[in-house]
């Protein structure tokens, strides 16, 4: 019996999981509340979930500079985790704001949608704050399972079904790879703690030639690379992004990706520090491959949603450049870039949500012709997000890429930085093409169906504010990102 008391004293520290705990409680309460609302009435759930996100955000911010470890070293709520938590919360908030009118338009006003987004965000938080491969893996699972459902949420639509099923099968497969990697690393080092693995590898004289460690590191990386949609594990991205409900696509490309980067960075930077040379070389190849494939295939796309899916692959490639650099500038660059990407990409998808018709939200380029004159506000908003995605000043896309490539240059990867900039130049082509259609083509449609939904407009305005603020005054947030590196 005294053992039990001892365990309870030592390991339980609810402070360390407070944000995710609050989010989960909100999710469960919302599930209960939704039972008592009449069918199809989702607005109260929507607003309650926003309140939940704000409360969680305040709790997260209160934990800044006050690192809390808990559960026998299974989680730690440090600045790094808090930064990513806030990024995911922003992504979830912007997504929920644009969701309610969209769900009603598409004929799926189902209350379960919002708790599932909250649970996904909680999973993302466990990933970002996990210091045990077990916690990270379970966080990934929580995040993935909710996303499988959300991707296939329009269960009457074949496209959405396909997205959910494809994501589920490939996701489960990649999770298997990751778990295999965890098992191998555990087999060599005898621990699943991130810091413990680092210690064990450091003490091993021939770690970088130990086949179990190499196989473990590679398999573990595959799991993360799948989640961030890096080539050659990007095959699922276009179909899933195109088929999933547009707000979910926006969320998937920002929040979960940021969480996967967080866990990936923690594991590689701490656990596999001794293998830096080999890992950096691997990331170099992957980063170039991911950027190039994403950009060149995006050129061929006629469908704007699918084009943004490929562009999200190339953006994962830019972020991977920060992993190659393996220094403070590169890592804080990734943190900054993930925040920037959240604003600009979700903003672009929010515009797509508004200009989509019921049942056909996959807008073709022709369908966007003349949008800039028919709907000036949406045109300008889309233009700002596209400029940011291109990486042009004074938008946040420029500063984000600048920090990441600066990290690569500082580490001596001149060619990588050059390839990255060249890739950005390629991406100008397909982003600018959307602008050309919006402003220099005669309108085919009159966009009379577009309803300016208040909540979605708010979401777009927040995203614009974020893009411009981070673009013009990146200093304060960049400082926070630097303070977040462990």
């Amino acid at each position, binding site marked *: 019996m005294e053992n039990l008391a001892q365990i309870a004293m030592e*390991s339980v520290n609810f402070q360390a999981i407070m944000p995710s705990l609050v989010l*989960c409680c909100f999710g469960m309460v919302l599930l209960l509340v939704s039972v008592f609302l009449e069918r199809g009435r989702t607005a109260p759930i929507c607003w309650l979930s926003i309140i939940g996100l704000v409360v969680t955000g305040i709790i997260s911010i209160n934990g800044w500079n006050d690192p809390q470890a808990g559960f026998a070293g299974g989680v730690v709520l440090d600045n790094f985790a808090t930064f990513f938590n806030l990024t995911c919360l922003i992504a979830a908030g912007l997504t929920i704001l644009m969701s309610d009118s969209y769900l009603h338009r598409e*004929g799926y006003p189902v209350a*379960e949608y919002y708790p*599932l987004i909250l*649970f996904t965000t909680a999973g993302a938080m466990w990933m970002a704050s996990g210091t045990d491969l077990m916690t990270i893996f379970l966080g990934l699972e929580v995040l993935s399972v*909710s996303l499988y459902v959300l991707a296939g949420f329009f269960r009457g639509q074949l496209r959405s079904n396909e997205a*959910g099923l494809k994501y589920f099968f490939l996701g489960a497969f990649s999770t298997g790879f990751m778990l295999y990697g965890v098992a191998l690393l555990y087999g060599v080092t005898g621990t699943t703690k991130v810091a413990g693995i680092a210690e064990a590898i450091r003490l091993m004289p021939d770690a970088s030639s130990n086949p179990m460690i190499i196989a473990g590191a590679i398999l573990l990386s595959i799991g993360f690379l799948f989640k961030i949609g890096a080539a050659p594990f990007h095959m699922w991205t276009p179909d899933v992004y195109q088929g999933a409900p547009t707000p979910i696509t926006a969320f998937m490309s920002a929040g979960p990706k940021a969480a996967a980067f967080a866990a990936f960075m923690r594991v590689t930077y701490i656990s596999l520090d001794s293998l830096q040379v080999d890992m950096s070389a691997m990331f170099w190849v992957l980063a170039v491959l991911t950027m190039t494939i994403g950009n060149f295939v995006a050129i061929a796309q006629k469908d704007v949603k699918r084009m943004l899916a490929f562009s999200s692959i190339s953006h994962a490639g830019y972020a991977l450049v920060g992993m190659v650099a393996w220094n403070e500038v590169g890592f804080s660059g990734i943190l900054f870039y993930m925040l920037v990407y959240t604003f600009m990409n979700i903003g672009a998808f929010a515009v797509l949500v508004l200009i989509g018709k019921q049942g056909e939200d996959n807008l073709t380029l022709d369908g966007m012709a003349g949008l800039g004159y028919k709907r000036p506000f949406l045109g300008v908003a889309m233009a700002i997000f596209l400029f940011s995605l291109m990486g042009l000043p004074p938008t946040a896309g420029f500063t984000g890429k600048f920090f990441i490539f600066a990290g690569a240059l500082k580490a001596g990867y001149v060619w990588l930085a050059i390839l990255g900039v060249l890739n950005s130049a390629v991406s100008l082509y397909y982003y600018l093409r959307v602008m050309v259609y919006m402003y220099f083509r005669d309108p085919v449609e009159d966009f009379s169906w577009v309803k300016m939904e208040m909540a979605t407009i708010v979401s777009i305005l927040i995203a614009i504010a974020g893009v411009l603020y981070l673009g013009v005054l990146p200093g304060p947030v960049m400082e926070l990102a630097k303070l977040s590196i462990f």
Partner: protein
Amino acid sequence: MATVLFYLLGLVTVIATLLAITRRNPVHAVIYLVNSFFALALLFYLLGAPLVAAWEVIIYAGAIMVLFLFIIMMLELAPTPEADRMGPTWWQWLPVLLLALALVGCTLMLIGVDAGVAQGVPRWYATPRDFGFALFGKYALAVEVVSFQLLFAAVGAFYVGKPERKRRQKKEEGA
């Protein structure tokens, strides 16, 4: 003795798994998979992990295989009644019979082996008590996260699996 058993069981596992993934009849595949799990369980026992061996049988060979059978029944993947009346032929019986006999033989041989000692680990490397403390102490968060996940996996499965009759009817009425 332990080495012989190890290779024997390894062989049974590989053969059973190969047969499981090549059978066209899903029920036959499940039977081979059960064989493979039993062989794995004996391997765990041989390595000095009787607790893991017990779970392998209870969870994998027991619970998960029943789940497989449920799904086969629900999707009606099993062969048609005509094919069923003929019953499996003797060459379909033979491999599974041989594998099962091999497993029974190995189990009897295990009586004479001091499990785990050959690998230099104590017979009870992890007692149920140790395991319980590790699970609800060191990995308490993991247990909680899994229980959370089960909750909303159920919510998601319920939502996705619910038939969509009302919507279809409405559409038809509209058209």
